[in-house]
């Protein structure tokens, strides 16, 4: 039997505001436990929340970037449950009247466009963190994160494969980064994702029983966890079994997911409008004001790269995958106006050197776009060969130095002096009479041997065009 996979994602993005959503504590990551706190975020008796306006602004930005309808009346609601990382015993979130609904984003799969629906976006506060130590009988509570603003972005069950889910997730990530409203750091948890996934026989309308996947803290883990879950559910269904509705935790070390089997699942959150916060009214003026500040988004920028710079679509997709990379590309382009050559270098040399688990983080690249452009200029004008350029680039990555300095220090400039090269060419021919004879007998392939010898002697610096030319000249004498 053929099955169709149905996936919906819930993404939590921490907003990059300076202060928390309902108090003026800092949102800085990495401070000592419980130092970013005050009576309000500690849930002390009698304190009241006051909404941070920037949170609403950022949420409106995301709503606009994802083609959502913005609710003009917003209501915060309490989500009630007990847990030590939740000081008030409820999380202030949104239930009825969230900030935005009915949006969509487009993703590219095998060169084809897929439109993924967004059910809703809502604003809420983050919870704190429990720190467990297996050597101790108790746990610690760190409330620094409590009250850090989040938006939750809920997709429609429109995704049909792990690949689509990853592409969608990367798209949301890029949009948030372009808007500069979320730092997108998955390791630190500022961009998190839960997945609902089910299988159904192809052609069937009714959705199958779903499981919920949690604890996938990288794009790769999301992909792997979903693939694993698709296989797991298919095996169950093919065996004539039934999928159990449950929450499963991804174990990235062992590449498996495990059922949480937790009583917490039976939660009834008893949502009701938070009486401490008045409705937020959003008028046209505010929306238009925010519209004016919207930056160019990934789709627009990609289109521009294709039309203005004649980049192939694959290059344009990669160059615009993050705002920083696109900025990097354009900064290099200002100094060296050959777009395809820049994208080639970024996609090959730079990405190979920078590659981490989640692709590249261009902000951490020691090679500035100016230096990359300088390197490409050196190649372009023949000062160094493409091969030497790779050596220079490696050195640039290691030291952060500019290419001219490296070329000078390491004496890597291309040898293009005809007289100097000719001397070596003649030496090589004199040392290898056998190969010369072969060449003259019509075995022109030995030309490669001669050039190789030259490169060896010049440590790769000989101008390859001239090498061929000079050997030809001498052998045909």
């Amino acid at each position, binding site marked *: 039997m053929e099955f169709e996979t149905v996936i919906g994602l819930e993404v939590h993005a921490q907003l990059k505001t300076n202060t928390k959503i309902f108090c003026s504590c800092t949102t800085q990551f990495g401070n000592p436990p419980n130092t970013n706190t005050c*009576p309000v975020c500690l849930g002390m008796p*009698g304190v009241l929340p006051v909404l941070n306006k920037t949170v609403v602004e950022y949420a409106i930005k995301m709503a606009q970037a994802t083609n959502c309808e913005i609710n003009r009346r917003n209501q915060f609601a309490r989500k009630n449950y007990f847990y030590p990382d939740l000081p008030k015993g409820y999380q202030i979130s949104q239930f009825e009247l969230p900030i935005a609904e009915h949006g969509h984003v487009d993703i590219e799969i095998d060169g084809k466009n897929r439109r993924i629906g967004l059910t809703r976006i809502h604003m809420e506060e983050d919870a704190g963190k429990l720190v467990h130590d297996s050597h101790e009988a108790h746990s610690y509570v760190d409330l620094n994160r409590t009250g850090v603003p989040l938006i939750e972005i809920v997709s429609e069950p429109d995704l049909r494969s792990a690949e689509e889910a990853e592409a969608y997730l990367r798209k949301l990530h890029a949009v948030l980064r372009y808007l500069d409203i979320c730092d997108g750091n998955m390791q630190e948890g500022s961009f998190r994702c839960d997945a609902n996934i089910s299988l159904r026989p192809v052609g069937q309308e009714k959705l199958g029983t779903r499981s919920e996947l949690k604890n996938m803290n990288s794009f790769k883990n999301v992909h792997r966890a979903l693939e694993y879950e698709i296989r797991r559910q298919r095996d169950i269904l093919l065996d004539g079994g039934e999928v159990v509705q449950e929450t499963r935790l991804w174990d990235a070390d062992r590449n498996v997911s495990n059922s949480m089997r937790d009583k917490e699942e039976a939660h009834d959150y*008893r949502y009701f409008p938070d009486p*401490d916060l008045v409705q937020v009214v959003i008028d046209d003026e505010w929306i238009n004001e925010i519209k004016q500040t919207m930056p160019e988004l990934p789709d627009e920028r990609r289109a521009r790269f294709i039309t203005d710079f004649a980049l192939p679509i694959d290059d344009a997709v990669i160059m615009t995958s993050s705002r920083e990379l696109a900025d990097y590309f354009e900064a290099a382009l200002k100094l060296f106006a050959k777009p395809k050559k820049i994208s080639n270098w970024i996609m090959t040399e730079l990405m190979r050197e920078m590659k981490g688990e989640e692709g590249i983080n261009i902000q951490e690249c020691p090679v500035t776009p100016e230096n990359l452009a300088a390197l490409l200029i050196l190649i372009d004008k023949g000062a160094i060969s493409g091969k030497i350029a790779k050596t220079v680039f490696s050195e640039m990555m290691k030291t952060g130095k500019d290419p001219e300095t490296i070329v000078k220090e390491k004496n890597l400039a291309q040898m293009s002096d005809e007289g100097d090269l000719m001397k070596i060419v003649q030496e090589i021919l004199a040392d290898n009479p056998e190969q010369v004879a072969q060449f003259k007998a019509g075995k022109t392939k030995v030309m490669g041997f001669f050039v190789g010898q030259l490169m060896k002697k010049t440590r790769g610096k000989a101008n390859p065009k001239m090498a061929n030319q000079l050997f030809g000249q001498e052998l045909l004498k």
Partner: protein
Amino acid sequence: MKLYELTIHKLQEMLAGREISAVELTRSVLDRIEQTEPKVNAYLTLETDKALEQAEAADKKLTEKQAAPLCGIPFAIKDVMCTKGMRTTAGSKILESFVPPYDATVIEKLRAEGAVFVGKVSMDEFAMGSANENCAYGVPHNPWNFDHICGGSSGGSAASVAAGECIASLGSDTGGSIRQPGSHCGVVGLKPTYGRVSRFGLLAFASSLDQIGPLTKDVTDCAMMLNAICGYDPKDSTSVDRPVPDHRAALEEGLEGMTIGIPKEYFGAGLDPEVKKAVLNSITRLKEAGAETRDVSLPHTEYGVAAYYIIAPAEASSNLARYDGVRYGFRSQEGESLLEMYSKTRSQGFGDEVKRRIIIGTYALSSGYYDAYYKKASQARTLIVEDYKKVFAECDVLISPVAPSPAWRIGEKTHDPLSMYLMDALTIPANLAGIPAMSVPCGFSTDGLPIGVQMQASHFEEEKLLRVAGGLEKLLGIASAKPSMD
């Protein structure tokens, strides 16, 4: 002369004229407390030394002629408002040792005026109750008859004012908790418009209904205290940013041109004949003094109690979730797991009435019941608001009883919570609608227990309330009546 018996406005003159010092006044109150407290039991926490220090500081300001109107006046604070450095229990075991590191906004405002804080007074646990019998630290007694309740939940506030154990006090009112004890103890009590006074630092019972207000010896004192505590607070999103009038000055305008509405639903079955008589007498006197009267109807009044006992417990069930033993307050030492720690802490830390309301509220908000209960109650609330809107289009102030009967005997209704809930029927609608309402003494039962009359006005029309209340107070001349305390 017994200084503790005097009003704020009288004492203010004496303090400003330096006839007396704030220290003398504070000592007078502290001596009175020592003498009467064994019988009244209004205070949960007394801060004698701190009070005297504050009085000294007040004297300095008074001498330098830099004193605000409430400078040097000794106050008692309901133990539900956070006082920096002073224990705040909400009448509950779960907060028995909780000392807030911050002041409620109202306390900050009084401090800025140079007020003296004598201590924190008794209340029903988390303000849940109508008799102040639900306090983890004992029951206060009505100064007019020690066998009777003070009313609740601000019982300690009302009793301490009536007994002369403070000059005035602050209470909080969620369904009548200022007005009803005010009425039972023969003092003036005002619940301002929702949003007029900041709730920051008030331990929440039902956030959409709670409002802080004064309990005082007369209407002028009430106006003076309202002046001091009201106004927009950026720390409370539900406080309203609009100009604050001089409420004391409004009193000068008197009854002239006031139309008084008499809502027939407030005079129905179950009303004690003596209460009815005293209230009707007040209406007659106001009419004689030139006020116009009109019979009006608030047809949805009967749904008030039912709506209230859904909305208030629902909000409370969530508001009280933070008392979990994790960060502050009482934590049970029994229990092996997190769940056990939670349930033992809350089972042992909360009293029966609080637990009852948490359970009711949790049930009302549960999925599948939300529409039938909470949503329905919210709709009833809207109908009650509409009732008031119509009525206030044709009259300025509504007059009615505060409570169906005078203070009952301690223990009389303890085992019948439902009949106790019904005692709030006449005060609850004002909280549901968010309108200001007050209670003014208007007579005594044949047993010598005080009876109050309730006045209600439209949103932010405290001035009208105070004008009618002040007018009535003059006509009846009973503001100076004091319990014998024998």
